[in-house]
């Protein structure tokens, strides 16, 4: 190999420290990769993992500086000290990068082909512009895009999320770099697509002998892709080693905590998910143990027995939510002046019942109609036809005035804890807002007391009431959202992907909290998510949605253990759990 230097390493990072004027973001980072190595860099938000990759690429934001040494094969210079002009020759040629969000990472005004071709023309690795274009089409074909010539002529918005990420990968691999950096490349993708893209990345780097540095918060993805892992926390690598070794025998408490919190198949003695705090008693999965998956499933069924009792008697209990033949059609802009308006059928005849006290999961990928369903349930949108009864009141066709009653019975926790809280309101006012129902007297003293109680039950300190949302972390904000939803003592709590924007360790805490509150407040839970693992843990009944229809419904066990519909099978097989990935290694 001509890429070898005297040391033989592909990249050798020593003592890399990244800091702003005021604080150190990453300290003493060391990494040595040989050609073809696949290394995972694991960490939660704020751990410094993205800063580290930016430093490797020499693309640190303004005001952030790095020290230490980065040696890349074939380049005698320490990259930390190299000028931008020198780095330009390396970026995209000897090392390249795939980013998290494929829609925003591609220029929306430029066709995909030219964007792929550009990386070759700018490094002059091809003879001419037309050769670059031809090569771009070939590359798009090599990442298994159907009809690559057409993809090359398309704009990014005309491709799906998975296709865009494939195009990004084609771009990154165009000059056959020795090192490929992937920063959460599949986090923004749907479950079934995630698996395909991961397989493609793995296949591509193995074929070319490319070194892969894979940055993610998702441990099961790392277990699937990487030989070696580095675990980062607060700017420091706390543990490093062979993937199987680290995951089955974690040395550092943080690694153990992260593993415990990510493992949705494992619960502690009370049937709750492990958190970083309770991780000491967590038994990590063994890399060699094959049947662990089955064992874990059995374990879960046992633990859920007492919950299940309520679910089994469901037919006798009158249903709290009853949805019949629900359809929702959105008109979209007409494509010709006199032609018919085209329509999007978001829901195509959806029917289900939720009994009081049930934990009802709605699973689906983006575009499945689950968000539309949720909006209609909450009275935020009106169905085109069909009926929705929630706690005795009909939602379909109801006027805003009539929905007051519904809003007291049904409350929502939204996905994005950053966007769903008014940044200019104090937490006290945010939580008390559902109490300001027209026709009810405002009793501030009583409200204050109720807010204090709610804060207590979601595990926030009492002084949180006087603060503003931006002063809280993502997990704390989601607790505020939950407090707001529960203050008017609704009978139904709808949770729309409540943990998908949260870090793994926080996710477990919020899920435990939700679980406890559902019991304490005798709530009926409707839990919408794309994450099968999370739904499996928290719900006792599940419906699977695809393209506006419910393709399968049943108890959680039925759906996960013996899926009947082809789509459900694909979904279950594509979803990754830590134990499965380790067992499959």
């Amino acid at each position: 190999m001509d890429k070898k230097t005297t040391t033989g390493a592909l990249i050798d990072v020593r003592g890399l420290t990244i800091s702003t004027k005021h604080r150190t973001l990453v300290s003493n980072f060391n990494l040595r990769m040989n050609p073809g190595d696949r290394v995972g860099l694991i960490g939660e938000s704020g751990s410094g993992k993205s800063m580290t990759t930016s430093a490797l690429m020499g693309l640190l934001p303004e005001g952030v500086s790095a020290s230490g040494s980065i040696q890349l094969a074939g380049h005698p210079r320490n990259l930390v000290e190299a000028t931008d002009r020198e780095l330009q020759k390396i970026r995209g040629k000897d090392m390249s990068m795939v980013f998290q969000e494929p829609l925003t990472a591609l220029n929306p005004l430029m066709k995909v082909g030219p964007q792929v071709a550009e990386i070759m023309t700018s490094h002059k690795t091809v003879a001419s512009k037309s050769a670059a274009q031809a090569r771009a089409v070939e590359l798009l074909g090599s990442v298994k895009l159907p009809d690559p010539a057409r993809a090359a002529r398309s704009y990014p918005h005309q491709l799906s999320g998975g296709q865009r990420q494939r195009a990004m990968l084609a771009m990154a691999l165009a000059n056959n770099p020795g090192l490929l950096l992937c920063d959460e490349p599949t986090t923004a993708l749907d479950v079934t697509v995630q698996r395909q893209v991961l397989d493609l990345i793995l296949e591509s780097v193995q074929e070319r002998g490319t070194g892969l540095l894979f940055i993610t918060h998702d441990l099961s993805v790392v277990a699937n892709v990487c030989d070696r892992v580095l675990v980062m926390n607060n700017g420091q690598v706390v543990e490093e080693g062979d993937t199987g070794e680290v995951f089955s025998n974690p040395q550092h408490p943080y690694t153990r905590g992260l593993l415990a919190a990510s493992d949705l198949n494992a619960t502690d003695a009370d049937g709750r998910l492990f958190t970083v705090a309770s991780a000491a008693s967590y038994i990590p999965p063994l890399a060699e143990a094959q049947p662990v998956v089955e064992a874990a499933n059995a374990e879960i069924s046992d633990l859920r027995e007492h919950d299940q009792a309520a679910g089994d008697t469901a037919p006798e209990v009158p249903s709290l939510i009853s949805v019949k033949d629900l359809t929702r059609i959105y008109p979209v802009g007409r494509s010709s002046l006199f032609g018919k308006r085209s329509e999007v059928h978001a829901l195509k005849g959806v029917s289900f019942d939720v009994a009081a006290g049930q934990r009802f999961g709605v699973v689906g990928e983006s575009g499945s109609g689950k968000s539309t369903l949720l909006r209609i349930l909450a009275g935020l949108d009106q169905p085109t036809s069909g009926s929705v009864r929630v706690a005795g009141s009909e939602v379909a066709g109801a006027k805003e005035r009539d929905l007051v009653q519904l809003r007291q019975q049904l409350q929502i926790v939204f996905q994005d804890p950053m966007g769903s809280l008014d940044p200019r309101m104090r937490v006290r006012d945010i939580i008390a807002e559902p109490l300001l129902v027209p026709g009810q007297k405002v009793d501030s003293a009583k409200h204050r007391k109720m807010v204090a109680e709610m804060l207590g039950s979601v595990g926030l300190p009492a002084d949180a009431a006087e603060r503003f949302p931006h002063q809280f972390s993502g997990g704390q904000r989601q607790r505020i959202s939950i407090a707001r939803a529960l203050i008017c003592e609704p009978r139904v709590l709808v949770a729309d992907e409540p943990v998908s924007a949260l870090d793994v360790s926080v996710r477990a805490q919020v899920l435990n909290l939700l679980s406890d509150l559902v019991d304490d407040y005798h709530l009926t839970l409707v839990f919408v998510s794309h994450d099968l693992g999370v739904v499996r843990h928290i719900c006792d009944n599940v419906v699977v949605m695809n393209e506006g229809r419910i393709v399968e419904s049943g108890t959680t066990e039925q759906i996960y253990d013996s899926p009947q519909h082809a789509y459900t099978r694909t979904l279950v097989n594509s979803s990754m759990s830590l134990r499965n990935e380790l067992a499959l290694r």
Partner: protein
Amino acid sequence: MGIRLLINLARFVVTYVIATVAVFLFMRAIPGDPAQIALGVNATPELLAKTRAEFGTDRPLIVQYFDWALGLPTGNFGTSYVTRQDISPLIVDRVQVSLILVLLAMVLALAIAIPFGTYAAVKHRNPSGIIVSGISQVGVAIPNFLAGILLVVVFAVGLGWLPANGWTPPGEDFGDFISRVVLPVLALASVQGAILTRYVRSAVMEVMNEDYLRTARSKGLGKLESLIKHGLRNASIPVLTVTSVQLAALIIGAVVIERVFVIPGLGSMLLDAVGNRDLLTVQSVVMVLVAITLIINLVVDVLYTILDPRIRKGA
């Protein structure tokens, strides 16, 4: 693309027709009989009746409306009640003057704003960028008549390089036209340029934070190269929006500059007509302005579709 244009054209016609009705009714709602105003308080009833017949204001409103509105597309605006002159040739003259003035000013303003705004964005942490940004802030605060007067004081009165005011059509004497048009265009463009610089700056700064610029850098493109190749076209979309709004506002907004430099533009004509209670002229000028605004919107919409593939339907 073609469909979108057709829809836009249809929208243009409908909007214009609605505007004619609105403008016509508003003008009639103003109290006062044009014949009475033209003749004064001492006019005899016979004379009034005769004048009304002459103006056509004795006919039913609906007839008057169609008489006026149907003349618009053919460029026939009718005869002024005050000056008793045909309005059309006057408007054609004035529109030419205003369009030349405003378009030149806008082109110059963009020529200032795009490079300076981009510079201020790229160097937003450096003193040089902050200075450019500061100057543009000052420019925004200066009213354009003040800029005009300052220019006259320096270049016309002080240095005597250029005439202080007046207007020569370009077809008549091109050299004289240039010498008279420079100062008013500069006065308009300096303020517009400052305003647009700020918009260009914020648009470019926004784009600089976009992921696709990071992608471009990770491909090995230089800072400036990636901004020019990937950033500017994206930044041009919000700038285009502001430019179109400013352009429409400037056609009438130039009236102050027209007064300072004694230029016979559309804005001056409108103000004079309002002062003289010359309703038909006001009505006609307003309709010309509506047409210009709608045309600007139409052109801008076509430009959007060219710039942004996401807008193109069926694509």
